[in-house]
């Protein structure tokens, strides 16, 4: 008997930098495209969502206050760590989505490159989106983009890893913190990503990953008064509408679902969707009272 019995992984949520089981104590069965059992995933509850928001809010000050250079280094570190664990993700994506190994590899490669893309954006977005405004008066006037705050991300249902990375990385690149609801059917790559983030210098709470029934987890998050924005990419039309209505209660910024080709150039709109523009004024003209000032 040379076949060794493999050690299976217990997949857990990723919240506040820790790996808790669901507060509900429940899991659900995750199968591959042929219906074979892959693992059990935690069935996150409203309370897990609540805890995730608390963790994300707690992490917001530090992460948004970190230098853009530092955030870039951290995101690049994620790419580095993924590169080393590529085989695992290729396998998980292939198993989940039922695609070929080479297709899965292409997706994982693209996902790693996406982290690199956004790593480079952290210290450029303020220059591209902000700047001095030439107001008609003796004032210095500067607009700067700032992160919106805690963002709920309803990750794409189909693209379990490239799609997930494509929606998550831009949210945190600018200093937001995220509560991610992973693809309901394909949650395992997301949970594994949590393990990578935990070892990539991403501070605990910056990314929180929940798995389970998208609609059940998303509802309390869309209504949560301490969540500032919601990305509805992974919600179907009906759910998206419901969540947008709930989000109106505290005027969350809403990114509506739209057809996305995750292999295409991502552009900047996912970065800018979760930015606020702050404009600061200050008087100039204090050179002197002897004429040079007026």
């Amino acid at each position, binding site marked *: 008997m040379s076949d060794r019995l493999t050690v299976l992984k217990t997949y857990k949520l990723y919240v506040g930098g820790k790996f808790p089981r669901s507060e509900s104590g429940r899991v659900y069965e995750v199968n591959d495209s042929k219906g074979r059992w892959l693992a059990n995933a935690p069935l996150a509850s409203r309370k897990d969502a609540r805890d995730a928001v608390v963790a994300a809010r707690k992490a917001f000050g530090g992460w948004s206050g970190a230098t853009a250079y530092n955030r870039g280094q951290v995101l690049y570190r994620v790419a580095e760590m993924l590169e080393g664990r590529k085989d695992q993700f290729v396998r998980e994506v292939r198993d989940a989505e039922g695609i070929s190994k080479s297709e899965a590899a292409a997706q994982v490669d693209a996902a790693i490159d996406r982290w690199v893309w956004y790593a480079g954006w952290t210290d450029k977005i303020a220059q591209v989106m902000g700047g001095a405004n030439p107001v008609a008066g003796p004032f210095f006037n500067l607009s700067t983009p700032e992160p919106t705050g805690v963002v709920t991300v309803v990750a794409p249902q189909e693209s379990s890893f490239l799609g997930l990375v494509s929606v998550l990385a831009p949210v945190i690149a600018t200093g937001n913190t995220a509560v991610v609801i992973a693809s309901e059917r394909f949650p395992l790559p997301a949970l594994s990503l949590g393990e990578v983030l935990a070892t990539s210098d991403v501070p605990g709470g910056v990314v929180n990953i929940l798995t389970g029934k998208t609609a059940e987890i998303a509802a309390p998050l869309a209504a949560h008064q301490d969540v500032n924005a919601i990305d509805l990419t992974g919600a179907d039309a009906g759910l998206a509408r419901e969540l947008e209505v709930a989000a109106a209660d505290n005027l969350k910024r809403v990114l509506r679902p739209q057809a996305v080709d995750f292999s295409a150039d991502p552009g900047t709109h996912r970065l800018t969707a979760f930015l606020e523009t702050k404009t600061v004024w200050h*008087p100039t003209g204090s050179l002197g*009272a002897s004429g040079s000032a*007026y």
Partner: protein
Amino acid sequence: MPTAFADVTASDSTLRRFLHGLPGVDAVGLEARAASLGTRSIKTTAKAYAIDLAISMIDLTTLEGADTPGKVRALGAKAVNPDPTDRGTPRTAAVCVYPDMVATAKAAVGDSGVKVASVATAFPAGRAAIDVKLGDVREAVAAGADEIDMVIDRGAFLAGDYMTVFEQIRAVKEACGTARLKVIFETGELSTYDNIRRASWIGMIAGADFIKTSTGKVGVNATPANTLLMLEAVRDFRAQTGVQIGVKPAGGIRSTKDAVKFLVLVNETAGPDWLDSHWFRFGASSLLNDLLMQRQKLATGRYSGPDYVTVD
């Protein structure tokens, strides 16, 4: 000097600490406030009141190397009787001349009530030994000056030697005897509003009866903003000590419109208590004729012209 300030003037360092602890001045905000008050629209009865008040606040001035007794006598006559066509016109507050012209001026204004003010302390530069400056003052006072307009030592001020500035003012005040002392900062040379505020407090603590913007001899003289700032200083000083001090913008105020704007600054900053020639003056010469022409316009309804006011 109010006793409250004995500690402040105890030493160089206490004085410096006090002056540098005064609230800062934001230039843009100050100028915006002055400009905003400048948009007040003063019409009809209010304008008539303001014109007469402004005339009564003028220190009618001649400070030229070419001043002669004849010129000074003409100035005195004009101060006493600004508009020969209307004897109801108020007299100016004073005439302002160099020390050697004080006696002539005194004779010219007689017992009209018009005061004679004399610049002193090596006006306008103030670059002379203290004894020379004090001698200048004593001579003017001896010749009958009712008021002395001194200049501060801007060099000492800008070098950070506030105590010298303070002590010179004290000494001049003493030399003034009963004459009222106006302290000229030459705000254009102090350059920053923070400096103007500090100079105001040095002057007020040292016993100035008036604080005055300028000599009229440099590029920038009285402006609405620096006058507003000095009005804030005398307002705050009275609130703190109960002692009221006058303000005199000088140089560059030539039109009725400008003068009225300054009166609005007085009214809405220091307050109505300062709306009196005892507490507010204009250091000016050509302003008077413009006020007189506007006064004639209000009386007759038609615009006046320069040939209907006297040129002296």
